[in-house]
């Protein structure tokens, strides 16, 4: 498109000749010979180039100055009498592209116009570039905002699994750990995880997903669903990997409830089937007894029907007991009875696996309030895990589990369970009480210690763990002798905690 040129000159003939000359070079030229015309043209139209005699009027300088302010890209060429050039230079200084004297040298004019055109096309490029840059900035801001505000944990990692960037939620829960290793921050480990989706993405460039249990900076455990995506450079090489983790802890808790319910229904339905068969048997005996006038059979049958009715009643109560939230069923029992019962449950398993038991249960520890069924199951679970830890250990020939019971200085009863099995790494130690976490692969359900720990917690007790990989583990389980004050508000096992 032709550049628009305003030619300001009081000499109409000269201006006309110049216009004809310039128009040959594909410019669209308008002449302004009076100050009013100049003002009109500058106020209402926009110009690419102005060739002006600044001495057309006294106000020309101010008028040109304001035109330049209005459109900073306009190319100003001064064309005036030789004796006025210096004055013009004093007024306009470097804001003018060229100073030409009248009568104009056509070559000087051509060169000035070429320079003006170059400036114009350069200015257009600069202005396009600025617009692109502004767009880029706003896109970057938007992406940055998305990255920061997405309700997931996002981290970007290099090939060494060092975090190079992290979003707001990640920083809130795991700290601003730029430069640290992912496995240290997420899992409190000292080495890379066995199955790492980030490593896999670096290898094949595809997105990978896993379910993990991670530990926040406050020591809280989260179940997360992790997905990865490669970040490539301009050559298409993967330089970093983005890891996006969604917190699914609540979903897992819900599943926990459903699984408990499923397990309970499974075991109950088997019992119900047996009872219904026996009830059916009772009815048969009653019918045939009456037909055969066999009083003994009738008598026996009515007893059987009654027994079955009682059993079914109890089972229904038990279903309610599981399905509804319930309080722990506290009863007073001696510590000795509780501990001995626990040991007798574990003995066969220990013996079968050639693990020795060293037991110390003083007889004078008195009585304790517990839900005996749950407490026994919980302590047995801790001991069974100790046996498992010994079975898995191939380095030592002899395995021993110590089970000590004593009173501590805070008037609590403390069970010490110590084994010389495989021990635990930091990750296992951190997560052992988390739902569905298991270090036993397909052999474990991730339910046992989770429930066992809950039982202790709901009794107002505590569990402390010390462990060294390859050497063994010690569990210190301490319980108050009496029911805690808030015990009545505690629901088990269906409570959502």
């Amino acid at each position: 498109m032709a550049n628009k040129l305003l030619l300001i000159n009081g000499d109409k003939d000269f201006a006309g000749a110049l216009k004809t000359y310039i128009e040959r070079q594909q410019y669209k030229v308008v002449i302004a010979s009076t100050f009013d015309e100049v003002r009109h043209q500058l106020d209402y139209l926009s110009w690419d180039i102005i060739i002006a005699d600044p001495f057309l009027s006294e106000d020309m300088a101010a008028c040109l100055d304001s035109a330049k302010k209005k459109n900073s890209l306009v190319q100003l060429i001064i064309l005036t009498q030789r004796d006025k050039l210096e004055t013009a230079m004093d007024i306009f200084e470097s804001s003018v592209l060229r100073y030409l004297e009248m009568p104009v040298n056509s070559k000087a004019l051509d060169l000035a116009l070429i320079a003006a055109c170059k400036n114009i096309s350069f200015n257009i490029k600069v202005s396009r570039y600025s617009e692109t840059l502004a767009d880029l900035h706003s896109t970057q801001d938007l992406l940055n905002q998305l990255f920061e505000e997405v309700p997931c944990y996002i981290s970007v990692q290099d090939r060494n699994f060092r975090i190079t960037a992290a979003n707001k939620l990640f920083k809130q829960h795991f700290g601003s750990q730029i430069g640290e290793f992912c496995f240290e921050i997420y899992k409190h480990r000292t080495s890379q995880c066995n199955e790492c989706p980030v490593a896999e993405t670096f290898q094949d460039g595809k997105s990978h997903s896993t379910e993990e249990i991670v530990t926040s900076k406050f020591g809280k455990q989260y179940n997360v669903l992790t997905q990865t995506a490669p970040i490539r450079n301009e050559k298409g090489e993967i330089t970093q990997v983005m890891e996006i983790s969604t917190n699914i802890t609540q979903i897992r808790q819900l599943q926990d409830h459903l699984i408990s319910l499923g397990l309970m229904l499974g075991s109950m339905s088997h019992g119900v089937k047996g009872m219904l068969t026996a009830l059916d048997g009772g009815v048969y005996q009653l019918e045939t007894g009456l037909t055969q006038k066999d009083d003994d059979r009738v008598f026996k049958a009515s007893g059987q029907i009654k027994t079955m009715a009682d059993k079914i009643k109890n089972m229904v109560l038990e279903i309610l007991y599981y399905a509804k939230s319930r309080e722990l069923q506290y009863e007073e029992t001696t510590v000795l009875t509780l501990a001995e019962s626990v040991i007798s449950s574990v003995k066969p398993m220990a013996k079968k696996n050639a693990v020795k038991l060293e037991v110390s249960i003083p007889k004078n520890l008195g009585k304790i309030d517990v839900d005996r069924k749950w407490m026994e199951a919980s302590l047995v679970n801790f001991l069974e895990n100790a046996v498992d830890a010994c079975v898995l250990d191939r380095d030592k020939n002899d395995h021993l589990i110590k089970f000590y019971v004593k009173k501590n200085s805070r008037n609590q009863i403390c069970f010490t369970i110590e084994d010389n099995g495989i021990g635990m790494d930091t990750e296992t130690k951190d997560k052992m009480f988390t739902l569905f976490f298991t270090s036993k692969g397909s052999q474990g359900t991730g339910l046992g210690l989770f429930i066992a720990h809950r039982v202790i917690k709901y009794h107002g007790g505590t569990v402390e763990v010390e462990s060294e990989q390859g050497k063994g583990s010690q569990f210190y389980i301490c319980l108050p002798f009496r029911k805690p004050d808030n015990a009545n508000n505690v629901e088990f096992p269906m409570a959502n905690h």
Partner: protein
Amino acid sequence: MKKKILVIDDDLNIRDYLVSLFNDNGYEAYIAGDVKEGIKEANKIKPDLITLDIEMPGEWGPRFYRQLSQDPKLKNIPVIVISGLSGHQYAVVKAVASLTKPFDREELLKIVKETLN
């Protein structure tokens, strides 16, 4: 001569029921409460048919069947599984029938009759 049926079940009430049912229908019923006792009784009385529960304390039903089928004198005795355990039909695949507790009385008698004839 009456055909002999051995009932193996750990539930006393169900054993009584099956014994009455079989005796009332012209059979001679015997009982065992677990796998060990079942093998002992089977050797002693040489039954014509065995009903077998799956889930019992100690060893479970399929183990009884394995021992039975390894004994040349007992291996041809037909076995009917009667269990409340889900998936019991897969526990003893060579059983003549697998019935779910609570079972249908007429159906059981029909299977027994067909098997013994």
